């Protein structure tokens, strides 16, 4: 009965014109979605970090006796590369905001390169460590934490490469419309911040 007050002509009108107009009005929520997704991602890392902190505080000695000391030079340099890559990447976004696609490509390309160096450095470090995954609780934590983070760097790198490939299409990214650029950049910053915490916990604590 509620529907009976509807005037037929009005309804038809609405469905043809206003509906089309509304389609446009629907705001773009994709960035909001990415932020929510990153909240979930942070919670995974927070879970792992908390476990690590509990171990560090309840074990009589941390790292357990006999754990070889970690070398700081290589991971230190690596950290600097990763952190600066965030700033480099941001210039890419600034470029596309001015509709400068080749600027975007340059800065994103550089970021990808720096990310790849980071990953290479990480693998090099793994190859030269004197302990393995199962040596003791600390080393297990070390590999799982850095490995899980490395996985995220890899995903971030793939996202950047994807954006680069897309940017070769004419007019794919414009000053108005560049969700892919924004999303991959936010993800990369996230991966960066996680690294800073991880570095502090595992290498410095």
């Amino acid at each position, binding site marked *: 009965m509620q529907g009976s007050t*509807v005037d037929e002509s009005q*309804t038809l009108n609405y469905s043809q014109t206003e509906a089309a107009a509304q389609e446009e009005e*629907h705001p773009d929520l994709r960035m*909001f979605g990415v932020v*929510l997704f990153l909240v979930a*991602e942070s919670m*995974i*890392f927070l879970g*792992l970090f908390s*476990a690590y902190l509990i171990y560090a505080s309840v074990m009589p000695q941390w790292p357990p006796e006999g754990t070889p000391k970690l070398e700081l030079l290589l991971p230190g340099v690596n950290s600097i590369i990763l952190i600066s890559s965030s700033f480099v990447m941001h210039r890419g976004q600034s470029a596309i905001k001015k509709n400068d696609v080749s600027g975007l490509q340059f800065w994103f390309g550089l970021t990808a390169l720096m990310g790849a160096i980071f990953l290479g450095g990480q693998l090099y470090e793994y190859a030269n460590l004197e302990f393995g995954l199962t040596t003791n609780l600390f080393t297990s934590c070390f590999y799982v934490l850095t490995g899980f983070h490395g996985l995220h760097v890899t995903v971030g790198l793939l996202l950047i490469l994807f954006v680069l490939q897309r940017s070769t299409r004419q007019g794919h990214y414009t000053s108005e419309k560049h969700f892919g650029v924004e999303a991959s950049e936010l993800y990369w910053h996230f991966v960066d911040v996680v690294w800073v915490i991880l570095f502090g916990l595992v290498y410095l604590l």
Partner: protein
Amino acid sequence: MTTSAETSLSEQEEKRTWTDYFTFNTDHKVIGIQYLVTSFIFYLIGGALAAGIRTELATPESDFVSPELYNQMFTVHGTVMIFLWIVPAGAGLANYLIPLMIGAKDMAFPRLNAVAFWMIPPGGLLLMASFFVGAPQAGWTSYPPLSLMTGKAGEEIWILSILILGTSSILGAINFLATILKMRMPEMGFFDLPLFCWSMLATAAMILISTPVLAAALIMLSFDLIVDTSFFDPTGGGDPIVYQHMFWFYSHPAVYIMILPFFGAISEILPVHARKPIFGYRAIAFSSLAISFLGLIVWAHHMFSSGTPGWLRMFFMATTMIIAVPTGIKVFGWCATIWGGKIRLNSAMLFGMGFVSAFLIGGLSGVMLASVPFDIHVHDSYFIVAHLHYVLFGGSVLGLFAAIYHWFPKMTGKYLNETWGRIHFVLTFIGLNLTFLPMHQLGLEGMNRRIAIYDAEFQTLNIICTIGSYILAVSTFPFLINLVWSVLKGKKAGANPWKALTLEWQTASPPLIENFEEEPVLWSGPYDYGVDVSEENDQSVQELLSDVKADMS
């Protein structure tokens, strides 16, 4: 009921065919029904396992199945009921209702939504497949070191399955949050939101924050299981308590993830069928948020006997008791809502009132368990089983049935049959109490949970439980018959069969593909009852409301 305008429009629109329900469809209504039907199938599987468990427990010896198979049965039963029935069923309801309730055409991310649904069948089938390699035996909690010692293959399959289902749940939550926060029709403020949306807001926030921590725990458990690290294995220097903390950081919120959607549904159903405004709208809305926040800081009440230090037990005892307050506020609000209402005692309302009464019992035993000295005595006994089934079966499942009876006319355009519905309710309610009430006694007398063999002195009560569980098993048949019969031959329901005020009732039943043929009008609050229909246009809402007030006093 349907007008010429409606019919002519729906004829123009593309029609849904049954095959759509088997495809990667992005319509939130299709996805909602996919969730509900899939999870219901898993409910039948989980129910069959429960019947097996109760059959074994009819006698003190282990005679119906071997102890190993018994372990597998209760592990898979718990996992199915939680991760494949109640959680996805709640997500299904939310998918169907949220966009309709807020006047939107679809969810914020329709494709993501479909992806989230399509992770459920593989996750579920994977879990079922574990029976071929020896299903997991460590219970739905999967505590190490037990879970590391009872069959690697089954345990790893369990982990993978939960990771898939958890990811699905997170993706769903992202959608719910974005939709409720950003897709409301422009004139709808937060305090015009139906309470179901508030409860889903709270649920989704909890999912987003807690589920990833479970994923972290399971990743670490996988390493222990497969490559012999020892995060949780004390023999290798690890600490199983860390797993318990991580697990319950998810799984306590998970119990609220399983009940909040149905709190929301009940807050919709009771006012409609009592023809009264909800009592304490804001109190109920905010109590959902309070539960969501407090629910994140009570987890260690599951660990009172895990060597948790005294000061920590004090903290968690206090927070756990505090969380009963927002829960109590809701129960109070519901009782006050139906008090003195013109109650329509149909199946939806019967299940709704059954929900309130059974949940109350579970809530009260919960408060008892919150007290450390009491909990230490009954932890891991049948008292816990009684508690969790009163809240999960008496709460979530009855709430879900209430929701199905209430929204079935919207989803299909047909009423469910009332006679079958009442038979269903009576059998369910008797079965529920017969099965789970004696378990309180069993627990107090010291019968352990998760054990196939028990002391002969407990047999009488166990037989009562088993009979109750068979009644529950039987009770599904009237429901199934009702579903099939009503879809085929049920009485036609119009757009608004219950004369309800939330927006989903402003469109045809079933709704058109993009939900509303005309822009929905927010002409009253969601619960301004007493006003049955929007009569003449020239009568303002104010006038209608004052009519109602005169009518009620």
